[in-house]
Every structure is written in structure tokens, then in C-alpha cells.
């Protein structure tokens, strides 16, 4: 079982985009039919790939609809296509192309959307990636990965390439330590963090993406207060490993789902559908998210976590202030 990460800031940190593009680079190097498109978004990793495969890194300009259509045409002609851009722009500007050109025909187009959640919070609602899960989840054939560290981000790229079907990988732009390693099996799509694998837990904090780190800290706070719980990291949002989720939560007294998403789009509702049908004795089911209104103005991630009760302290407080039987 994965050990709790302590003293995060003292560990070596890695950039998500470097991890992602190193993995893409390895694929493009070995597969002559792999192509990457970008809507004029730069990345150092992309420049590296351009040097040895200049024809297969295509900057289509700021034309998201065209980019996704071109990706579909390439995929229909034998290519595996990576599409790189700011998450919210690609999803919402080109949603119909993602649906009709890519998903209906189940094509091997792998979207790498940078700016999940509030990664670009200070840039306002134009750049926040807080509603996309709701719409992407509605598309048949689509797989959604939401990695919280560089290892799982790299895994998501490789897994998507292996699947050869539409995949959306939401990535952050933080520098973070590595949480997972080759010793962890990520194939279940749900990663469980527990101090004592065999012990009885009273509850679980479920999260995905960057807030997994907050959840892990909350778990430590609760442990210090004598409450043992699990953190469940949803790496693969779609398809969701429902059986494992239900197995992990069926006897719990409480579940908190915490995420950087608008409430109508949130995983909290999705999880509830599967968890509550199997667990009739649950005492608390709490969803913590960004509510149902646009975050106008600048919203730095840490500030927003305080405002919406998504910090480790706030998550732990939910349980500490409302003790269960």
C-alpha cells in the first residue's frame, strides 16, 4: 500500500508538463504514426520533440475547432494523435468536434488539457477548468484521467496510447513531488491510501487531481486526532471502477468527496449514486467543491481552497466537529 507522503515540500518536485512530454516524446520516437497538434501552446518538451520529428509536431494556430477536426482526419488515416492545449479552451470551444468527429467514431485522439481545476485560477473564469468533467463524462467512448502527480500523469499518457480510443488527460502545471512509483499498480483507476491496509476505517476522503494532496494532509490531521480513514484518489474518472469504489466504501460511517469543480459538475454526485446504493448505514456523505457560481476576479488556488473549505484543516474539521457514533 502506498505510504503517506510527509514533508512534501522537502521532496524533489517535478513539472507535470515535463513528465507528460517526456512520455509523449518516447512514443513519438518509436511510432512514426504518432502526431501531436497544439493550438499555439508552447512547452519545453514540445520543442524537444520538434527537433527530431518536426513534421509530426504541428502548431495549427489558435483554432481549437480546426485542431480537433484535423486530429480526427489524421486518426481516420492511421495516425495516433495527441492534442495539446489549455483544457477549458479545447473542451468548450471544440466540444462538438470532440463529440462528433472524435468520440462517435471512437478515434485514437489523446487530449492533453493543461489547467485542470484552478491551476489557472488567477486568470479568471476564461482559464479555469472547473466544469469540463461534467460534459466530457457525457460522451460515450471517452476516457478521462485526472492525475495528481507526475508518475500517474505519465501513466495516463501511456495507458491512453495503449487504448487507442478517445482519452482526455487533465493535467496541472504545479511542481510537485512524485506520489506514485513503479511499485504501485495504477490499473484499477482508484488509488487507495491507508496507513494500515487491514485495519477498519471509519471513513474515506475521496478526491481527484490536485486536491488529493489536501486530502492526504487531512488524513494526517485526523490520524493525529485518533481517527483512521482512507484517501481514495480517483485517477480514472471515466470509466469509473464502480465495483472497487463500492467495495472500499460499503461499510464506512462517513465519506467526504472533495474537488476543484463546480457543484453541478462534481464527482460528489457521481460517487453518491454508486456509494449510497451499497452503503445503507452511512451517517455522513459530504461534498466539498466550488459551489454553483462563477469565480470572477482572481482566484489563487490556496485562496480558493480557504474560501470554499477545501484545505486540509477544513476537510478534517468536517469530521472533527461532527463526530460519528
Amino acid at each position, binding site marked *: 500500500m502506498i505510504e503517506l507522503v510527509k514533508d512534501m515540500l522537502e521532496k524533489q518536485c517535478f513539472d507535470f508538463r515535463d513528465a507528460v512530454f517526456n512520455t509523449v516524446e518516447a512514443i513519438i520516437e518509436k511510432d512514426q504514426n504518432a502526431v501531436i497538434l497544439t493550438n499555439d501552446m508552447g512547452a519545453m518538451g514540445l520543442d524537444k520533440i520538434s527537433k527530431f520529428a518536426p513534421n509530426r509536431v504541428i502548431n495549427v494556430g489558435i483554432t481549437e475547432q480546426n485542431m480537433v477536426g*484535423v486530429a*480526427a482526419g489524421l486518426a481516420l488515416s492511421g495516425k495516433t494523435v495527441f492534442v495539446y492545449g489549455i483544457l477549458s479552451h479545447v473542451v468548450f470551444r471544440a466540444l462538438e468536434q470532440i463529440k462528433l468527429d472524435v468520440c462517435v467514431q471512437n478515434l485514437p485522439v489523446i487530449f492533453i488539457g493543461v489547467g485542470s481545476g484552478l491551476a489557472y485560477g488567477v486568470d479568471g473564469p476564461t482559464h479555469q477548468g472547473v466544469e469540463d468533467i461534467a460534459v466530457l463524462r457525457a460522451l460515450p467512448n471517452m476516457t478521462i484521467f485526472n492525475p495528481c502527480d507526475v508518475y500517474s500523469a505519465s501513466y495516463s499518457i501511456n495507458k491512453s496510447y495503449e487504448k487507442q480510443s478517445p482519452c482526455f488527460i487533465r493535467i496541472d502545471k504545479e511542481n510537485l513531488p512524485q506520489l506514485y512509483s513503479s511499485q504501485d499498480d495504477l490499473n484499477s483507476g482508484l488509488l487507495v491510501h491507508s496507513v494500515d491496509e487491514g485495519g477498519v476505517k471509519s471513513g474515506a476522503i475521496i478526491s481527484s487531481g490536485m486536491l488529493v494532496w489536501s486530502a492526504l494532509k487531512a488524513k494526517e490531521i485526523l490520524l493525529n486526532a485518533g481517527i483512521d480513514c482512507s484517501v481514495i484518489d480517483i485517477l480514472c474518472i471515466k470509466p469509473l471502477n464502480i465495483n472497487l469504489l463500492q467495495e472500499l466504501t460499503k461499510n464506512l460511517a462517513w465519506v467526504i468527496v472533495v474537488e476543484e469543480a463546480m457543484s453541478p459538475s462534481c464527482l460528489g454526485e457521481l460517487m453518491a449514486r454508486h456509494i449510497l446504493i451499497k452503503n445503507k448505514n452511512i451517517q455522513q456523505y459530504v461534498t466539498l467543491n466550488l459551489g454553483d457560481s462563477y469565480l470572477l476576479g482572481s482566484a489563487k488556488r490556496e485562496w480558493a481552497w480557504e474560501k470554499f473549505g477545501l484545505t486540509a484543516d477544513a476537510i478534517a474539521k468536517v469530521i472533527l466537529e461532527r463526530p460519528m457514533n
Partner: protein
Amino acid sequence: MIHLDINFEFLNKKALQIRRTVLQTAIWGGKGHIPPAFSWADIATALFYGNILQINPQNPKWIDRDRFILSKGHACLSLYAALSDLGFFSREELKFFAGNGSLLPGHPDAEIPGVEVCSGSLGHGLSVGAGMATSAKLGGLPWFTYVVLGDGECHEGSIWEAAMYSGHQKLGRLIAIVDRNMLGATDFTENYASLGSIAARFEAFGWEAVEVDGHNFHELIQVLRESRKRSLGERPLCIVAKTTKGKGVDFMENSKYWHHQMPKGDQIDLAWEMLGGVPKND
């Protein structure tokens, strides 16, 4: 591969056959966009029966086939007429057009043999075609990509994103054919969002553009034969085909009231009369 004689009598016969099948299929289905289908029926005839498109009904996914996209998917009745006649699927399927569980919906999808993509939400086809042409260029592959667009469709911003991309990339074997009938769904294009010279617009984005009479087989075949000589690295080609929406049935022709409405009563008899008479064994 299809090798058909190119003679004008044959093409005229096939064009009439397409229009008759369009009308019959719409009557069977109780719906359909007849005038938009008539508008490009001669373009379809030239492409499918003029030995232009290199395709194989026995092997619709033949790897070296030309790629054809009808981006103005609502005009699919002419496409269905040609594909069924060529043997991509049975003519019997036409009887179930737009019926429950039918192979043939009101807008084409990629499950239909001979159809590459879903189309009918406008503005998608040129980008997808550009992607196909990019793939051909990257691999030095022999096939061409033809995309038929509506002129009303050219109001979509995504068309011009694709035009800009394809011009810059010099996708020489990408050929866009614009069905320039001057009508959108409810009015003449110049009355609500003027398109002016579509050829000039494509030229401004780095394309070569020519204008032809979209009902004249001499002009259509000539320009399409020339298109086969294009190399991978030159400018893409836009053929602006001047057409008449509803061509072949005079009360539908060039009318802003005829887009997807169905002929009724005497109108049906009149339409058959203009298309060579009521079918006996169609």
C-alpha cells in the same frame, strides 16, 4: 476500382437517376432535404460517375481510396442515391430512409459503407478532410481528399480556420467543392451575411480557386480531371460550383421557401413529371 466510361449522355442519365432516387427516397421516408440534394446532384454525378473518385464498393475501406466527405450532410439523399447505385449498400435500404433502426439517417453517419464521417452539423468536414490530407502528405500517400461544402456552411468560422490551416500547410491534394447556390436554410446568403466571392476568400487563405458552372459536365469534369494532377506540396484547390438549389424541379428552384419541406399532392406529380415521369419500378 471503378472505371466508368465518361460520356455526357451517360452522365446526364446518371444525374437524372440521382434526382429521381432523391425524390423517391424522400417520399419513402416522409422527409428529407430535397432541394439541397438536387443542388449538388450534378457535382455528385461528376465525382462518382466521371471516373474522378477512386473508390471501391466491394472494399469501402480500401486503404488507398480517395477520401470523400459530404460536409453539407443534410444533402445526403444524393450521396445515398450514388452509393446505393454503385453497390456500397443495397438499394433496398433507401426504402427505410430515416426509419427506426435504418442504416440511413437524415444526416449521414460513418456506419454507412462509403461514408467516412458523420456530417450535418455544419463546419466540420473541411477540418477533418484537412487532417486526412495531412496524413497523406506526411506519408507521401497516393490518394486525394474531396470535401463538398455548402455556401451557407461557409458562414461557420471553423471553415475559415480549416482554410487557413490547409493553405498554410499546402495540402495540394485537398480539394474543396463549394455548392454555391446562394441560399442558406431560410434566405439568400447575400441578404443576411454576405459571402461575396467565396473564391477570393479562399485565395486570400492561400488556396487556388476556380469558379465553374455546377450543372455543366464539361466544366465539372474538366476541373475535376485537372485536380487529379495536383501534387502534395502545392496550394489546396477550391472549386466554387455555381449551382441552383432545387435544380431539376422548377417550383423548388432558387427559392428560399424550399429547403427541407416536402412536396405534397399535385406537387409530387409535378416533380415526377419534371424528372421524367412517375416511376414504374423505381
